[in-house]
């Protein structure tokens, strides 16, 4: 009995409530645009955006697929690079003190400022976009993973050492598993901002993708198409975030019980 009602409540929570909140936000938005008579070129109303999506659905899907592809490869690349880098930073204080500042520096460089370099050296194919997605999303992964590795409980580590664990086993059996909760936070941040990475990548030079579509539409004052693209980008971002969260739930549920 108790379980049943609980489930029902959960269902309300998971589906109805957020839908309700978002729907009411959309309604408020609609009403505001109507009442304040906000012109469509500045902020289109939800209905206008919806119409735009309806009218350009296949166009939006086609561009979305390009963007998703860039995000996918870029993020995988970021993940591999980020984890590898985090492990080396964690392992060696030389690497930490010499590479970590460069990693931080890489985040402070506005990509737009180095587009000529990227274009000349890498071109405007998908590879540039993958690099930019990776460049943007690997940083949270590195920082969180380094902190995760460093949060490894000293007593657990000592225990493994007495069992004879070598450096490699310590890493794979103890440090990496215990860093997972942090890694997942980093991945969630990384995957969300990788969406913007793809857009910026497409901005550097592209002929397809949602970023391209947006920046094409903006100067034409097709603001509702811009918002339709943003809507698709958001859906992509939220889906990817949720996917990683589900994975996290499966893999690091133990996190809350570590001391018990």
């Amino acid at each position, binding site marked *: 009995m108790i379980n049943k009602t609980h489930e029902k409540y959960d269902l309300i929570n998971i589906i109805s409530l957020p839908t309700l909140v978002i729907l009411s936000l959309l309604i408020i938005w609609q009403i505001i645009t109507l009442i304040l008579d906000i012109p469509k070129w500045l902020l289109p109303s939800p209905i206008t955006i919806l119409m735009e999506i309806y009218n350009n659905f296949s166009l939006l899907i086609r561009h979305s697929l390009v963007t998703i592809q860039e995000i996918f490869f870029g993020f995988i690349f970021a993940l591999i690079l980020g984890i590898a880098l985090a492990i080396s930073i964690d392992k060696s204080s030389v690497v930490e003190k010499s590479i970590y500042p460069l990693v931080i520096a890489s985040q402070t460089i506005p990509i737009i400022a180095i587009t000529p370099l990227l274009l000349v050296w890498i071109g405007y194919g998908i590879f540039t976009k993958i690099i930019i997605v990776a460049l943007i999303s690997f940083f949270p992964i590195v920082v969180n993973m380094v902190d995760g590795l460093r949060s490894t409980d000293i007593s657990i580590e*000592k225990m*493994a*050492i007495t*069992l004879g664990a070598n450096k490699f086993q310590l890493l794979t059996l103890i440090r990496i598993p215990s860093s997972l909760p942090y890694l997942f936070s980093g991945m969630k941040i990384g995957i969300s901002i990788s969406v913007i990475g793809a857009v910026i990548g497409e901005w550097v030079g592209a002929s397809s993708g949602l970023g391209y579509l947006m920046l094409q539409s903006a100067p034409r004052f097709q603001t509702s198409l811009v918002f339709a693209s943003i809507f698709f980008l958001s859906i992509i971002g939220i889906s990817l975030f949720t996917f990683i969260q589900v994975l996290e739930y499966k893999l690091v549920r*133990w996190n809350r*019980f570590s001391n*018990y």
Partner: protein
Amino acid sequence: MAGDFFLKGITIISIENIKKTFMVKNNQIEVIGNINIQIKKGKFISFVGPSGCGKTTLLNIIAGLESPDSGRVIISSKPSKEMIGKIGYMHQKDGLLPWRNVIDNSVLGLEINGIKRTQAYEIVRPLMKQFGLSEFEEAMPWEISGGMRQRVALLRTVAYEPEVILLDEPFGALDALTREDLQFWLLQLYQKLNQTVIMITHDIEEALILSDKVCVLNDSPCSIVKNIDVPFEKSEKHRNTSNVEFAKLKSELSYAIRE
């Protein structure tokens, strides 16, 4: 007589002039004064002493996990640091990996020593049964009781059959019955494999039942105040608690601790 008993066999662990100081805030606390002890291969030694006297610290130093400020520990002719991994050490805190279930925690030592998981399962399964954990193979650490956790930690320590075993209050969270079972099991194991065991305990009776030698430590700083060789044969152990000599030794030890 007692000295005689301990001159037999080769020294496997040699603890020489160990000193250790900790800094807590701005106070320097001398934890271990000057400890010297030789342990022969195949012997079972117990340390008893007041809480906070430095027993765990001493065991950490023997295990090579901590460095003494001066002095050294030699195990099998090597500095203890080089013996890390060849010594089984059951810590006071169980240190179970929260992301592994009971059986995967149990096989950790075997796995680290290069045995495949499936094979390791075969090795620990009979032990699991003896330890009363069979039903909980798949349980996660937070789903088992405090005493069960302690048993898993003990199992993990002995499963890969190290030559030297260090035990920090292995039975502290167990009821009398389970404790007796495991004590008996441990005694058999160490006799069979001729392992050298150092155990920390608060229970004088337990120390007498299991050990060849009991060392009483006191605090500020930690040093050995009494050394008792237990004169019972290994085989007759565990059945001597009602013996007169046993009672005498027990009160002797209690007295030493109270000093």
